[in-house]
């Protein structure tokens, strides 16, 4: 059972993100980086499938700068077998479309039964790459997946995916792309032996020239962030005063009706 997991390195959720004074970009100096949490669900699910089927490989594919090696090694330490790091200045400035195109060209060279992507990366929050990747590979996809069951013949899988007001159980043929949602699994921690083994696992560096793309990075991007700003602060909260919690409660109800006009 061969799985590919697309992995992105992103700022930690606690990181304070600053913007440049001219608003032309965000400032990530000094920020702590992690594996995109949704991609971790993918790594875990792929490892579970490998364990269930008793054979196969989990390969990581990551597009990003040199610092991503740390995230890739963590994925290998969790138990993935090998990794492909798309690392080239030519990839800079790419948007979701450009990223999916590059990932697709790499993945077309690989053998796989299933591909896991996170539902979105927690830095740009676009949530497009998994679906675009499936389109470029001409395979079906299911998004927001909370459960995966692969048929013993590995020709299809049955998944639960979130929809408005509930969940849908769908069957789709393999190979396919699954985008992960929280609740799919609890990712394992990398063990110390795992971390040691990870240092020796194959981590190939892939350049733009290896992929035969006519355009990549900013040249292939069709969207561009131009004006980055911090969100406007909400006007200071009005704290409801009162002699007792009951009095405050009554005042709150009144204020929501008469002042905020939301009740």
């Amino acid at each position, binding site marked *: 059972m061969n799985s590919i997991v697309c992995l992105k390195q992103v700022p930690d959720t606690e990181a304070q993100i600053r913007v440049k004074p001219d608003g032309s970009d965000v400032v990530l100096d000094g920020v702590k980086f992690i594996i995109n949490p949704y991609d971790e669900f993918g790594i875990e699910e792929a490892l579970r499938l490998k364990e269930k089927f008793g054979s196969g490989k989990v390969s990581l594919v990551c597009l990003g700068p040199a610092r991503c090696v740390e995230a890739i090694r963590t994925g290998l330490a969790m138990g993935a077998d090998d990794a492909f790091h798309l690392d080239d200045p030519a990839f800079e400035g790419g948007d979701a479309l450009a990223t999916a195109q590059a990932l697709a060209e790499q993945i077309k060279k690989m053998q796989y039964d299933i591909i896991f992507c996170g539902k979105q990366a927690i830095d740009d929050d*676009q949530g497009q790459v998994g679906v675009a990747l499936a389109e470029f590979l001409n395979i*079906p996809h299911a998004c927001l997946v909370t459960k995966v069951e692969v048929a013993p013949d590995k020709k299809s899988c049955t998944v639960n995916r979130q929809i408005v007001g509930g969940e849908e159980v769908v069957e789709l043929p393999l190979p396919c792309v699954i985008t992960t949602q929280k609740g799919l699994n609890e990712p394992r921690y990398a063990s110390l032996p795992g971390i040691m083994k990870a240092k020796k696992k194959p981590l190939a560096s892939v350049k733009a020239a290896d992929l035969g793309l006519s355009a990549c990075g900013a040249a292939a991007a069709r969207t561009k962030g131009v004006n980055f700003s911090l969100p406007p602060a909400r006007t200071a909260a009005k704290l409801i005063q009162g002699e007792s919690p*009951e009095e405050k409660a009554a005042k709150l109800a009144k204020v929501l009706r008469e002042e905020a006009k939301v009740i």
Partner: protein
Amino acid sequence: MGKGIWVFAEQADGRLRKVTFEILSAARKIADAKSEQLCAVCLGKDIASLADKFAPYGADKVYMVSHDLLEQYTTDAYAKALCDLISKEQPSVVLFGATVLGRDLSSKVAARVGAGLASDCVDLKLDASGTLCVRRPMYAGKVYAEVVFPNAPIIAASIRPNVLVPSAPDASRTAEVVTITPEISAADIRIKIKDVVKTAAGKVDLTEAERIVSGGRGMKAAENFKMLEELADVIGATVGASRAAVDAGWRPQSDQVGQTGKVVSPNLYIACGISGSIQHYAGMGTSKVIVAINKDSEAPIFSKCDYGVVDDLFKVVPTFTAELKKMMAE
């Protein structure tokens, strides 16, 4: 520009999602400024009765795309029908609601037609040079970016529901209605829907709720959420939860509001016993009015809300509910 601004009109069970009207209203202003035609595009099976719903919000033209295979949403069927129409008519811009369906369909369509796509936007307008520009949150709402679309043969965007304000409907407006029968066959659809499991039948989904009452770690136990359910019943709200309440096993994952839960944008969000971390705020920061009830005066939520009560929620909420019940009965 010059070839049409389209708004994908999402419907389910013959009911249109409100976000459609929010987007039409905003797009109408752009269509006026750029002398473009504004079109609503509606896909489904028995949808003829919806055809006259779009003109009052500014649509000049309505495409009613009808087929048996569009009865239930599948990416394959909807993408084929919509992309075939896009290839034929060549609009400049295609807009979607950033709903579960909208985000799935817009990503598929953009990849297929080579559009530049910005997801989950909170504003769309023309910049100083008359180019279409959208605004969207990033880093879980810690940063906002304006996005433009260089080299994009088609521009696409999905718009967060409940942020843009729909215009008052103008019943005197008319639109040309075009009925399309798309070419789709069962062989085009690679996915088989085996079952649909609806949670909390009859309750409005968090992502569509106008009012939400949410509980966090301060609720202390699962059974205490009954108090919030009573409050929610009185004001017609849906009950949500912070990650702490979900991780404690008090509420299901599907109730979670936040960075790793649902993004909601109600008119009223009442946070009870929720500390108000950045990650929680990422899921409800665009709510119109945020109320916080928490006995910890240092809780971060008090710098992120509009109204706050620093007190014991177990004493505040019952009285609050009773007062609202009296008010609603007046």
